[in-house]
């Protein structure tokens, strides 16, 4: 028995012994060296591939964002609320008829109803775009009311996390572009500078048109900058790039 225990102890100690890592000098002595780094080679440098055409074309057409993803995007972008809480906020208490209930829009948004085998809508239609507009207007106008009308610190705002000049004056092109870029990054998820040429100018024209139309708005209606940023916001949440991927 004693012999068996002694042998087991010796065996265990032997298993736990870790050999010391060889030093660089020892490695060199042993003829080991760092493996050669593989240098990237362009495909055209490979013999026989000098004129090889590379296909960068997209392999399938843009698809419609699933309605559930769309609704979740709305929830995330406009305050991170639950659907019910956002519905309450969008309906408001002022009787300005901006929103009804999510349930009223589900069918038009293309949400499937598997109880009766109604599949999700794979393509847009005119009524769906009308629903996009109805919801987009409600989201953006409520965001303007919350962010630009209230005395909310910039970092606490839901969407418009930038200052507007006080006293109110027209924004320069650069000032507009910087603020537009913030919204563009937040809603379309990439810098406005990377968008196709003309997008910033097009949104600037939209903004200025709304500002001019609302220059002498009444107390309840949006003033110029509010209407302008509401229009820019609507343009982004109704943009083809927001709905197709």
């Amino acid at each position, binding site marked *: 028995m004693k012999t068996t225990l002694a042998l087991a102890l010796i065996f265990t100690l032997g298993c736990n012994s870790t050999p010391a890592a060889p030093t660089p000098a020892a490695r060199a002595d042993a003829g080991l060296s760092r493996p050669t780094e593989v240098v990237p080679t362009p495909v055209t440098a490979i013999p026989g591939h000098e004129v090889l055409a590379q296909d960068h074309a997209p392999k399938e057409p843009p698809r419609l964002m699933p309605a559930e993803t769309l609704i979740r995007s709305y929830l995330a972008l406009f305050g991170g609320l639950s659907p019910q809480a956002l519905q309450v906020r969008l309906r408001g208490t002022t009787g300005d008829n901006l929103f009804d209930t999510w349930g009223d829009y589900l069918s038009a948004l293309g949400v499937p109803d598997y109880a009766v085998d109604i599949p999700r809508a794979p393509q847009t239609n005119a009524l769906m775009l009308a629903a996009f507009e109805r919801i987009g207007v409600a989201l953006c106008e409520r965001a303007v009311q919350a962010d630009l009308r209230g005395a909310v610190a910039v970092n606490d705002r839901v969407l418009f996390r930038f200052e507007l000049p006080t006293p109110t004056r027209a924004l320069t092109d650069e000032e507009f572009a910087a603020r537009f870029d913030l919204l563009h990054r937040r809603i379309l998820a990439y810098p406005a500078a990377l968008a196709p040429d003309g997008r910033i100018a097009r949104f600037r024209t939209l903004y200025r048109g709304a500002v001019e139309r609302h220059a002498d708005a009444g107390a309840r209606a949006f003033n110029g900058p509010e209407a302008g940023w*509401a229009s820019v916001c609507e343009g982004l949440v109704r943009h083809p790039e927001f709905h*197709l991927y």
Partner: protein
Amino acid sequence: MENRRRTFLKVLGGAAAAGVASQPLFRAFADPPAASDEFFVLIHASGGWDVTLSLDPRNERRGIIEPGSTDTIDTAPIRRWRNAPLDADSSTFEIYRPAGSSLRLGPAIGNLGDMPERLTIFNGLAMNTVSHADGTFFAATGRHLAGGKPIAASIDTMLANEFGRESLLPTVSVGYPSTYVGNELDARVSPLRVNSVDTLSKMLNRGNVNTTAVDRQAVTAMLTEEARDLAARSWYRDEIEGFGLQLAALPRMLSPDVQQIFNAAALAAAQPSFFPSPGLRFQNRAGVNCAFAVEAMKRNLVRCVSFASASHDTHAANYRSQPLIQQELFDTVAALVRALDAAPHPTLTGQRLSDHTHILLVSDFCRTPQINLTLGRDHYPNGSALVISPRFVGNTAFGRADDDQLLPVSAGMFADGDRPVAPPDVLATFVAAFGVNPRRYLRDGDVIRSLLRA
């Protein structure tokens, strides 16, 4: 052995001959054009109607049949009720026979009784179910539920797939049992299912307190340009171009003219005949849906309008209102026919909408021939359907239920033998009336050619 082989060869030869002979039949079902001038209204009389008061009238005690009587029915509002003796202290009704017609109708038929030449009635439909859900989908799809789920496309989806692919709204389904099942269906014809026409109104309605329609139109115009630019840069242009075209169509969708058809008050003003005074007690929503159908079809915005009526499910003392529920529904359908008569076709100059609009009414099943202990009627596996279509022979009743038990009896020889008529036959005949091969959508059902106009 030799004898069996000979028999087999004979059968094989007969089958081949039958196959060759049947070819012209299927050639007749060539694909119709996607765009069409036909419109459809599909109505589901929900809850199961009592056909003994209207389409398959019974006014005698016979077998297990207890006819509707002054004991069980509130007869005062039923305009066509004429007392006929039943027993010492109660009366039943006289069968209504329209002048110049062979049809026999019950007192609940309402104003439809004035237009027998337009009615094609199916009686003695073998529903083979007394479940609301099963009967509802069987009537609309021609297939019973499997595992509680519908397994075939509904009639409105079939018709939209054939004729409504290019429509702005292929199918608007207001509570109708619309289903979208099958590999042949175009993605565009998925039914737009809503609880009421007003729901669509909500989608098109806009507040004008903070911003105005001009502001929104500016956004839409800018997005249309963006879509055009993106499409020009894209490898696959169709989707983005389509998006842009739909954006460009949005102002039309939001125009006051189109918004009116989704607004119940505006519909009531445009089509007052659907809202008689005093008001309807049960079928006001059916009136809204019919008014919507007429106004939307006049503008060529929709191909199929399908909706469910108020419930006919009257198990207890509420059975007293059963004939009124039906009368209001049939009055509304009669008003629909007259409104279609008065409306010009949107694309065919000089023609009426009624010349190209086809109406189909079905229900879950019918109600028991007996009166139960709570003075109502329960579920019964018989049924009736009604077609109003210029493609059908009017003044006609096809099929029948037996005299003693109100159960379906043979309606003649079908491809699978002598049997009663069933919902798949109704649906197959309905789609075949427009040149559609029923086998594209329906596993079962024969086309009853004798009901179709040449």
